């Protein structure tokens, strides 16, 4: 199998994602440039974190119209696996591949620390390595991670088990204090109805190398790989 990591002008977690897939997990991985018009036969695509196009206009709004995104959208609509991390999540929302939108953090602060995440759905292609209700510790680093969707959309997300991760405390309780950015219902990650597109604000690629003392992020990447074994 082969992974593709998309590089937009302003992506800055592209090499981290590439490193984890290629060096830690030993999977064939290639970069996909924003001007590319082919996914180079990749079986799964990662939209990495960063500040594509300087976050101008709205986060992800300009990247969404990059030539490579036409291919990513086609791929996703055909059932291909697409993971969006942080800015990648913002781009997936702007592309309408995921519902909702990510706004400026309610407290206006850039939040950068480890958070606890409760796994609400461990049956997606991205979370099968997680236990039901497992608590993962994964770092966040964002200024615009305040997830918002209207009531009808939230109800649909709940009814279809599309809310994958919620911010929680160390005991797995979904509390206001554990919500770092004001996201509605503490939502940290959602997938589409078909479960083949997943976006999250936390950075699993920053906790997937034993040298860094935490490998919770590996569960997401291993889950993706296991879909092809």
């Amino acid at each position, binding site marked *: 199998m082969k992974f593709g990591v998309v590089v937009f002008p302003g992506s800055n977690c592209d090499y981290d994602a590439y490193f984890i897939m290629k060096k830690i997990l030993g999977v064939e991985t290639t970069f996909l440039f924003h001007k590319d018009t082919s996914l180079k036969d990749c079986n799964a695509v990662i939209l990495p974190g960063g500040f594509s196009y300087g976050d101008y206009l709205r986060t992800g709004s300009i990247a969404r119209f990059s030539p490579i995104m036409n291919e990513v959208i086609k791929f996703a609509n055909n059932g291909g696996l697409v993971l969006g991390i942080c800015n990648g999540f913002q781009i997936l929302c702007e592309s309408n591949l995921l519902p909702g939108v990510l706004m400026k953090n*309610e407290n*206006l602060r850039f939040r950068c620390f480890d958070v606890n995440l409760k796994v609400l759905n461990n049956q997606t292609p991205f979370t099968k390595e997680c236990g039901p209700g497992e608590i993962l510790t994964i770092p966040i680093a964002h200024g615009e991670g305040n997830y918002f969707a209207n009531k009808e959309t939230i109800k649909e997300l709940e009814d279809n088990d599309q809310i994958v991760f919620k911010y929680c405390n160390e005991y797995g309780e979904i509390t206001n204090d554990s919500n770092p950015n004001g996201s509605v219902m503490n939502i940290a990650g959602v997938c589409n109805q078909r479960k083949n597109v997943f976006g999250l604000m936390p950075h699993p690629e920053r906790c997937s190398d034993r040298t860094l003392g935490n490998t919770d992020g590996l569960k997401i990447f291993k889950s993706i790989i296991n879909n092809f074994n």
Partner: protein
Amino acid sequence: MFLVKIFIKRRRSILDPQGKAVEHRINSLGYKNVSSVRIDKYIELELNENDFTKAKNNVEKICNDLLANPHLEDYSFELTKK
């Protein structure tokens, strides 16, 4: 040719934390009579089109596709013949 002035406003039902922060600072400067500060976007562009209806349709499409996010924002615009 049209000069297009586009106003993009975040829906009033959605909290605008930037506006709130600026409002607090204005209040702290002594202007206690200021409230409901909102920070919105103003975009200006020139459109090389002579037909008003075509120009209007063009701008609407640009707003819907890129400039405004339908989950959060409403837009309005003015066309002025140049």
